[in-house]
């Protein structure tokens, strides 16, 4: 294990970013989000939850897929894919890291999403153990250890030091390039911090959330529960929950006419909360907000696990709990539906 004084962190960031683009939580206009580090930038490593998750780096909110050029009656297709240069994603929390696993199962399964894959392969992920999880966190429910995330490198941080552990070959390569900034040691401090953190996690209000209902109930029984109506009543149909969610993976493919002979086809995040979600030429198979609301949670808790060996597509990051304008969230859904298992 290696360690570096917190006051030397900027040296570390500069050193990494000199070699490869470095993406990490930055504070811009008062909010912490992942962004490209440049010297002098205001970092936000201590913020527990960035507003948007780290998934942007592999699956950005909007991404050009292909361009078309028309010339008279001819159309040429321009492949805009370029080789993605290696980059470092720094400070990913355990929940967000777990979310990559959820996304991988979607994007890397056959047929492989090459846009996602290129970025995923090019990235060295430095995960960051949580020290002070808060009341909206419930990663434990999904078997995540917030005190010991994996990734290519894992870091811990206390008031004095940042501790560094390489986990993979990619991690070693990164470590090598910045090794000169580090000193050896810190195992004990990390261990102590982990114990502290795990103690806090035990006490968190949602840590005892019980998901067994969703594992043991027939899909249609859950689908037909009358409570969905009440649960969704206050939903504004905005996309906040889906856009801050680290595992939401739906996207829409749209076109933009950049000029008279140039069309850009791009994809952008879609939200199952939107009325045009899965809109088809015949119309829409979900016509009410209740149905759309149900879709989101059925997908997270039932459909996705069904297709992926029981893996839930929620990682308990709690962003939706914090950000929903009307304070609706997955915890309320789980408790409302799961609380009446005997029905």
């Amino acid at each position, binding site marked *: 294990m290696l360690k570096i004084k917190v006051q030397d962190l900027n040296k570390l960031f500069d050193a990494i970013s000199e070699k490869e683009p470095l993406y990490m939580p930055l504070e811009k206009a008062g909010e912490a989000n992942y962004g490209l580090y440049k010297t002098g930038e205001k970092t936000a490593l201590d913020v527990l939850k960035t507003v948007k998750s780290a998934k942007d780096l592999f699956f950005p909110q909007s991404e050009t897929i292909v361009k078309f050029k028309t010339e008279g*009656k001819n159309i040429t297709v321009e492949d805009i894919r370029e080789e993605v240069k290696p980059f470092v994603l720094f400070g990913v929390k355990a929940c967000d890291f777990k979310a990559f696993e959820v996304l991988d199962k979607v994007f890397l399964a056959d047929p492989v999403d090459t846009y996602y894959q290129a970025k995923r392969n090019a990235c060295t992920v430095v995960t960051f153990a949580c020290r002070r999880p808060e009341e909206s966190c419930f990663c434990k429910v999904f078997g995540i250890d917030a005190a010991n995330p994996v990734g290519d490198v894992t870091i811990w941080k206390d008031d004095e030091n940042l501790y560094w552990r390489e986990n993979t070959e990619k991690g070693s390569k990164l470590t090598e390039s910045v090794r000169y900034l580090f000193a050896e040691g810190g195992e004990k401090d990390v261990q102590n911090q982990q114990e502290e953190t795990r103690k806090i996690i035990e006490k968190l209000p949602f840590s005892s959330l019980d998901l067994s209902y969703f594992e043991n109930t027939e899909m249609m029984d859950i689908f037909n529960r009358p409570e969905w109506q009440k649960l969704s009543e206050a939903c504004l149909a905005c996309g906040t929950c889906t856009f801050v969610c680290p595992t939401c993976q739906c996207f829409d493919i749209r076109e933009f006419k950049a000029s008279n002979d140039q069309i850009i086809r791009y994809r952008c995040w879609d939200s199952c909360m939107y009325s045009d979600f899965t809109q088809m030429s015949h*119309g829409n198979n979900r*016509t009410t907000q209740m149905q759309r609301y149900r879709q989101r949670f059925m997908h997270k808790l039932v459909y996705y696990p069904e297709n992926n060996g029981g893996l839930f597509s929620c990682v308990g990051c709690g962003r939706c709990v914090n950000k929903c304008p009307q304070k609706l969230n997955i915890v309320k859904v789980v408790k409302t539906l799961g609380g009446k298992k005997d029905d």
Partner: protein
Amino acid sequence: MQRIGVFICWCGSNIAATVDVERVSEAIKSEPGVVFSANYQYMCSENGQQLLRNAIKEYHLTGVVVGSCSPRMHEATFRKAAEAEGLNPYMVEIANIREHCSWIHKDREEATEKAIILVRTAIAKVKLNAPLTAGESPVTKRALVIGGGIAGIQAALDIAEAGFEVDIVEKNPTIGGRMAQLDKTFPTLDCAACILTPKMVDCAQSDKIDILTYSEVEDVKGFVGNFKVKIRRKARFVDETKCTGCKICMDNCPSKKGLNEFNMNLNNRPAIYIPFAQAIPNVAVIDPEQCLKLKSGKCGLCQKKCGVGAIDYTMTDKIIEREYGAIVVATGFRPINIDKFNEYGYSENKDVITSLELERLMNAAGPTNGVLLRPSDNTHPKVITFIQCVGSRDLTDCGKPYCSKICCMYTAKHAMLIREKYPDTEVHVFYIDVRCPGKNYDEFYRRACEQYGVDYIKGMVGKVYNQNGKLMVQGSNLIENEQVTIPSDLVVLATAIEPEPSVRKIATLLTASIDTNNFLTEAHPKLKPVESPTAGVYLAGVCQGPKDIPETVSQASACAAKVIGLLVKDSLKTNPCVAQSDESMCNGCSQCANVCAYGAITYIDKEFRLGGGKTETRRVAYVNPAVCQGCGACTVTCPSGAMDLKGFASKQIMSEVEEICRK
């Protein structure tokens, strides 16, 4: 697939000298959708049009762009040519490469480049054009005239003369209006009744005119050519078809306390009355406020005395509904209330009177039988002082900011008549300005000074007070730079006039706009002075702005001409470039109707299928294409974009923008 033909006009050398027309045609050829591109010396010529027509036929064109002079010049020409060949005329767009290009640029390169862009822009628009068809709506061949004063009478007579039926709705028991109250008229001094009453009789005798007195417009629906109007016929308590106007009822009526409105409340009349001798219809009416029978059930004398059994105390208001093709508003005016001008002491002194009251005091049929006696003691006034601009040109709360226009002339008339009839009377006139533009008007005023010795004093009166029975008129004589005080026997105030207040309700019903002074607004102050912005509604007389009798009559006849022009048509072609609301997106917020100057937008409840067998009823906007003028104000007000304008659709304009900005 669109098949667009592009025609570039040389306009002789007007375009071709600065724009390389050959290059433009060539550049346009490769534009997607363009199947034909040519240039020609004079596109507007017979041969040019033939070129266009041939291309439409040969290439089965779905759209045409002509790069030529301004669309304001030849759009109609090319549209007609296209239509002749079976192409919808609204599939033709003009690129203005003359006024907006060749004529203003010197550099050939620059001008040619710009011309190409302008033509491309027109192509982008025409690609989104939709064939439009002018709608037709039938015309009800009957006109409504609201107001039975001289304006309404003249308009009705002229319309009837052309052979159309016309109804006059008058809220008073008789037609005649303000003019009937006047004694003499300027500048000829002929008697008002002598020239007005024959016209009133003509109205009554015309088989085309239906006079609905003692009636008010209650509701107006519909639009130009197709108005549906509800008219309230107030209970007269006298059967119009039976009453002979014999006046026996009047003589026998025991209630004599009703104020005589016709005589400006200067004397009294019975509860059952005919407003004046030449009233049309010459039919009595019962004032329910004064009638003992109606108030207390005790009396019924008139019914007993009536030889033809015309009196019916059980009569109630009736609402009748009629249809009209055009409406003339001629609601007239009234003098403003001058109680608040306490400097003139109108409410304190009986001998301070308004000009209209003086008219009655001088009229042979008036309360004094034409002998000028002052109201307080019925004596001849020896010194009479006139004050002009009372309430006119006055920015305070009491007055009106505008010039009432008629006062200078009628004051001169009054002064002159008094001096003529009572040469021993001293007449003074306080004035700010004497305004007499008009044929023989200034001459008239000068006559008052020169021939009749009326004393005109330049200056305004500051105070009128009673001192020992004399009215002391204290004012400025600005020419002499003196403050003068004139002890007078009678003071006459040239009171400002204002639109009859009922016009407000009528304006609302007709969605005709009203200005800050309650005058109806004309569609254009110079070019459409008798039209209201609401199609099919015309304005005559003072309801539109202060004016005298000759002007009123001219305007009324102008209205009639407009109405006749409308009613001779069997149907009206509507402008197809009108707004239309996409009901599936409209949520009936009513913002669009608020900005529509023409009242073209109404709201209907419409049922929508939601899927799953469910339906939803929603309030949505409906644009009446016959009324909409196509300005587009509503389209911008609509946040959802449900409202769009045909021929100038948002998508079309945006595609033009895109094309212009393309480099």
